[in-house]
């Protein structure tokens, strides 16, 4: 018995070794072929190579999904060769950035402020490659950051909410209490008070960008305090707020994407078009006109930020008033107290 078992084990061992050795042998050939192929392909027409790194999953239906959409738009518009890596933890960022840079990618995006430090470290090692931190804060010879003009959308959605409320209580369900978020919270309150001095604004922070049940609870708490318009300043958890508003018969305002298809309660949405940011940055990178600075994209920059069309529930005079204010702002006749 033992001998048979031993024989079996030995045989397996031999197979294993054979497999491993065989693997190693054929691999090296494979790899050489791969490497010699790549430069040849590049020499042909040299397409722009653009890579993207996200910290979360690209199918989150929100922030990271918008990055992938933008990347696909870049592929379409510029005929670029694209690649991306999702779920990059902080501890892998440098290594992933380096790997892309070594692969000869021309432009590498890090989708989130967390990529700022890693980009600053790695960019210096690859002067030929352009690195862009979206919502980041670093800049240098070959690395740049982009930001939205946070606060713009808060003001105009705040106006809309202030004009639409009948109970004079409006709510905001925001994700986390970070400066990029509070900038819009502050202007939302300003905008609402501007058109309706009696309005009371309730603000709750969910503490996460994804927690749908908690977002719904926060919305319900605000609705129980008579709020009848709620701005949801997250993205993935919007649906929870919409459900709460549907149950209570209140209005809601969406964020980042046009979410009017998700619920009838949505009267408008504050749109942040990451796609415009990506396309603009790639265009400038291609033309070689990027300056080492933090770019701010707002309503005046190719509609990087805008309000989505109002729903039929919004009376014409409210629409006109908000649109007029937006026009004044675009024309420079209205100045907002923006931190960005």
């Amino acid at each position, binding site marked *: 018995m*033992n001998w048979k*078992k*031993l024989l079996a*084990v030995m045989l*397996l*061992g031999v*197979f*294993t*070794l054979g*497999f*491993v050795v065989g*693997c*190693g042998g*054929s*691999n*090296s050939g*494979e*790899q050489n072929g*791969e490497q010699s192929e790549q430069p040849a392909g590049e020499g042909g027409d040299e397409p722009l190579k653009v*890579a993207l790194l996200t910290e979360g*999953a690209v199918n989150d239906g929100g922030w990271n999904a918008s990055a992938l959409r933008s990347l696909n738009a870049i592929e379409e518009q510029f005929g670029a060769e694209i*690649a991306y*890596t*999702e*779920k990059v*933890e*902080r*501890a*892998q960022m*440098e*290594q*992933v950035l*380096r*790997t*892309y840079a070594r*692969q000869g990618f021309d432009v590498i995006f890090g989708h989130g*402020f*967390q990529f700022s*430090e890693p980009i600053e*470290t790695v960019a210096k*090692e690859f002067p030929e490659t352009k690195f862009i931190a979206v919502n980041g*804060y670093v800049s240098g010879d070959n690395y740049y950051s982009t930001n939205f003009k946070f606060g713009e959308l808060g003001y105009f959605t705040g106006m809309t909410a202030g004009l639409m409320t009948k109970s004079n209580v409006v709510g905001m369900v925001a994700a*986390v*209490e*970070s*400066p*990029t978020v509070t900038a819009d919270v502050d202007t939302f309150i300003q905008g609402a008070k501007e058109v309706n001095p009696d309005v009371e604004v309730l603000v709750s922070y969910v503490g996460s960008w994804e927690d749908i049940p908690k977002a719904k609870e926060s919305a319900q708490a605000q609705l129980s305090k008579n709020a009848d318009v709620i701005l949801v300043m997250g993205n993935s958890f919007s649906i929870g707020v919409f459900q709460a508003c549907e149950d209570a018969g209140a209005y809601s305002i969406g964020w980042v994407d046009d979410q009017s298809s998700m619920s009838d309660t949505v009267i408008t949405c504050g749109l942040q078009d990451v796609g415009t940011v990506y396309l603009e940055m790639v265009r400038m990178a291609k033309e070689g006109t990027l300056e080492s600075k933090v770019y701010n994209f707002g309503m005046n920059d190719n509609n990087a930020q805008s309000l989505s069309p109002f729903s039929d529930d919004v009376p014409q005079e409210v629409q006109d008033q908000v649109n007029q204010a937006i026009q004044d702002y675009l024309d420079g006749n209205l100045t907002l107290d923006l931190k960005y």
Partner: protein
Amino acid sequence: MNTQFDYKRIETGLSYLISSLLSIAVALIISSFILLGQGKDPLQAFSLIFQGGIGDMAAFGASLVRACPLMLAALGIAFAFKAGIYNIGAEGQIYLGAMFATWVGILPLGLPKIIHLPLAILTGMAAGASWAFIPAYLKVKKGFNEVIMTILLNYIGVYFVNASVHSYLQEPNGYYPQTSKVLETATLPKLMANSELHAGILLGLIGAVILYVILQKTDFGYQLRCVGSNPEASRTSGMNAKLTLIAAMLVSGAFAGLAGASEVLGYQHLLLENFSPNTGYDAISVALLGRLNPIGVVIAAIFIGVLRTGANTMQIMMGVPVTIVYIIQAIIILCVLAFTNWKLDLSRFFERGAKDANSKLANRS
């Protein structure tokens, strides 16, 4: 006697080698099917993992950076497991260690590096140890279950650190939820240019040697292993099992704290929310993979580091979805775990050999 001892060593060594090779082979075969299902060439994928993990010094450096926190935390976990106390709380201990090390690291104390850096590291270790002391004390004094305690404390620790990054530890201009950068005087030196490899890995190696010596060569180590294998017997034979458990847990927490401290002081240089997700849990599999032996843990941590870094490269070069990469990593780890615990029948073979040798010896005399 001597020959028998040698057989024993060859037997364990050989059985470990064969089972490791077997496990890797099985893992590669299973993963191949998944990759084929994705329409990717498995051979190319594996060679890319290899290249990306240990292809050149830069890649190996990156692998060691990944391995460093896993190694340090797993050393602590293995130490506690040896004593029979299941510390699942490395995650929280890592976070607290990192937080306190950062806190000392950003204080403008005006101290020279030779004082500031050890001070930051020791604070981190102390923080980890104190966090581990809570479940240890409650287990020993009140009989609480340490597994549940440590898991729950993880949540408290992680969220406490995340909340701190949003409030009092936030950088002065307060734009982003992160701390200021750690001062130059509190950073661990880099070991290699154009890579993140820092001296933390040396701390890991030194720590492994120290723990090995403690476990194998000291009275305390012997006591600890006894308590781990049979606490009642150890107690009745006059050992202080309670004190041993607490000590083991403190050491364990200190190592987890060190893992967090070295990650911030050596690599990330500032503290973010979720700066190192799941490291504490991954370290448990590293500890088990290393068979709770300090030297084994070092090897296992480097193995996982290479696997992770190499898998990243494979993902980038071949466009495999990251989830597939995670599945492959998990299969490899599972196979290694399964096979290292699978006792080969080789032992009987060698025992028979040894018996023959013994009987021959006996006959001769």
